[in-house]
């Protein structure tokens, strides 16, 4: 094993283990609120993993967008439904579960067959470019990627209009 047990490796292992556990928790918890909390935790840890990759800008954006906005919305909706009728969210067993688990594991195995051999030939290279610098991110976003940026902004606009429309039908 060329991978040495450095402090960094230990920290990474801790973060990654936490993230993996949280990911399992998302799927395994029967209670949707707990699933959501696991996901929040997972995303929060992912933010730290992004920090470890030296993309600080995205790490903090991850926390702002996912933990701060998206997951709050999720929890809000879950609790709203829970408030409405809590019995609805109970899970029932059916035959797709074992099949799904089997296939999921198969997928993991397939992908691992590509990843595991990579452990053997690890050579670390120094990071040359500052990916996490907000200036660099901004400049790239508004020059090379300005068209996708505009497209995504348009998509967000459509999303806003759509959600307002969905919510507004009640008014009429």
């Amino acid at each position, binding site marked *: 094993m060329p991978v040495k047990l450095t402090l960094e490796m230990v920290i990474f292992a801790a973060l990654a283990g936490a993230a993996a556990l949280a990911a399992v928790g998302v799927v395994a918890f029967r209670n949707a609120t707990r699933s959501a909390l696991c*996901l929040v935790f997972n995303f929060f840890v992912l933010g730290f993993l992004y920090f470890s990759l030296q993309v600080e800008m995205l790490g903090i954006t991850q926390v702002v967008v996912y933990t701060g906005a998206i997951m709050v919305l999720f929890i809000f909706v879950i609790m709203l439904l829970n408030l*409405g009728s809590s019995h609805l969210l109970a899970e029932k067993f059916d035959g797709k579960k074992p099949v799904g688990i089997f296939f999921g594991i198969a997928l993991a195995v397939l992908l691992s067959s590509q990843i595991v051999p990579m452990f053997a030939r690890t050579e670390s290279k120094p990071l040359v470019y500052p990916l996490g610098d907000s200036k660099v991110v901004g400049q790239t976003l508004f020059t090379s990627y300005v068209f996708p940026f505009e497209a995504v902004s348009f998509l967000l606009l459509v999303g806003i209009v759509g959600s307002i429309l969905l919510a507004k039908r009640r008014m009429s």
Partner: protein
Amino acid sequence: MNGVPLSAYLGLSMFMFSTGVIGVIIRRNPIVIFMCIELMLNAVNLAFLSFARYKFATAEGSLESAMGGPMFVIFVMAVAAAEVAVGLGIIMAIFRLRENIDVDELNLLKG
């Protein structure tokens, strides 16, 4: 983190993605399915960033190529935000209409 190999990040990404896939199939609560999709998206984001960090941001790559990863992550985040806003709105609308959100019973679109 020079001590951590790329494969470690990819392994985590792979694990999260597979977990998400399993979750999408075995869960019946559409909100949880949604969350599993978010999990998969984030797994992919992690893969994007680790590739950008390990493959492109090194001396062999260029800033232009390396920024592809973070850019895609930003776009994925934005798309995810829009998706969640609309998706949760739809779930709420379905709930208002049918008092039920079990995906297995939401099969009005069958042929």
